[in-house]
């Protein structure tokens, strides 16, 4: 079955190491970033944009499987190349997909993959789609100021393409989704006349949100799905950073071997973190395994689901 859930990732050319960041800013500690954030490097765009990365991921997917009969394209991004038109429409053109296809963008960050999965599964279950191409692509680094070393240490750019068939969609769910609109300023891109667009994040605020809400959602999700915590074989959380993830692990008492951590080389790639981690574990034989996914962050927004492969 797991052969039918295909995920491919794609990254920009430039790999920015902690050492390079430390050379740029002597106050920045490469050791701290490695030890506490769990990040040693991250890919960052130079002359690429989110469409280039998305196309790269889709082309990698196309090497494995035809995209000719895709009938729904969902593009998750918060760093579009243009405010309009939709990135999904431009990608549709670049991939030369058939005209009889629904294409839409989803403006969500770290929870975006889960929300997009929920839409994809709903379309399939409603008989409105048979094969869904779900693309995530974010280039947050274009919003982060050069002297904002804290956020430059955390975020990396990247894209993924997931092909979801009707067979696999029936094995995904239930979903739990949530929003805390009062936290809208905790991660935000603002603009002013001096800096243009610039990114800011209330790190401790996001951390507290994650530590409170992720364990609650996981417990409710497990209860709703009818499986026990012990029956979950892998937990794939949006990482934020390793310190947050380790605290969530501690609260939920998740054994090391069940927690999938995949940010050391690539950093926090926003909407792509979960599918990038999934791409890695799909290299194993996952037949009969339960995989719990949970994303949280900008919005504030949270979502979780369980895959049974």
């Amino acid at each position, binding site marked *: 079955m797991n052969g039918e859930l295909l995920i491919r990732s794609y990254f920009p050319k430039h790999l920015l190491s902690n050492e390079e960041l430390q050379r740029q800013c002597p106050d920045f500690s490469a050791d701290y970033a490695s*030890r*506490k954030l769990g990040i040693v490097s991250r890919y960052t765009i130079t002359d690429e944009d989110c469409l280039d990365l998305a196309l790269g991921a889709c082309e990698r997917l196309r090497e494995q499987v035809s995209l000719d009969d895709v009938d729904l394209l969902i593009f998750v991004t918060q760093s579009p190349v243009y405010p309009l038109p939709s990135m999904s429409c431009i990608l549709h053109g670049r991939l030369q997909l058939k005209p009889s296809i629904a294409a839409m963008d989803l403006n969500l960050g770290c929870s975006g993959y889960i929300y997009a999965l929920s839409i994809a599964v709903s379309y399939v279950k409603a008989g409105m789609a048979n094969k869904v191409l779900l693309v995530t692509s974010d280039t947050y680094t274009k919003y982060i100021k050069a002297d904002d070393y804290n956020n430059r240490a955390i975020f990396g750019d990247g894209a993924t393409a997931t092909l979801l068939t009707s067979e696999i969609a029936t094995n995904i769910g239930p979903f739990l989704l949530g929003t805390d609109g009062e936290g809208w300023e905790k991660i935000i891109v603002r603009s002013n006349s001096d800096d243009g667009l610039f990114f800011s994040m*209330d*790190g*401790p*605020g996001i*951390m*507290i949100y994650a*530590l*409170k809400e992720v364990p609650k959602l996981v417990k409710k999700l497990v209860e709703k799905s009818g499986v026990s915590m012990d029956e979950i074989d892998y937990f794939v959380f949006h990482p934020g*950073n390793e*310190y*947050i993830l*380790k*605290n969530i692990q*501690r609260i939920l008492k998740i054994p090391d071997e069940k927690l999938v951590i995949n940010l050391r080389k690539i950093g926090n790639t926003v909407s792509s973190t979960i599918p990038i981690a999934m791409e890695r574990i799909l290299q194993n034989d996952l037949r009969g395994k339960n995989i719990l996914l949970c994303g949280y962050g900008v919005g504030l927004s949270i979502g979780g689901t369980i895959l049974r492969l």
Partner: protein
Amino acid sequence: MLKTIVDEILKGAIEDLNMQIKDKVEYSDDLILNGDGCKIDSMDRGVIIFYIETEIEQRFNHSISLLADEQFRESDDKNPLRTVGSLKEWLNHRLEELN
């Protein structure tokens, strides 16, 4: 009684933090949590605040959000999160109001 419970909660928060950091910190009213001379970082403060808010919810059935309070955005000396002592004072006052 309230003061003892608040002290217990803060002590627990620092013990919880110490389980996760390499350079341990010693619990006292003078321990600096924010600003000049502080030896913990913003994520450590996140762990401390999460612990405190969770304990208050469990013990007093009050849901509070420290960072939502404007005083926590004040500069060093006016910020209740400056030291364990100032945080203790703020919590005692806030819980007296709520109870």
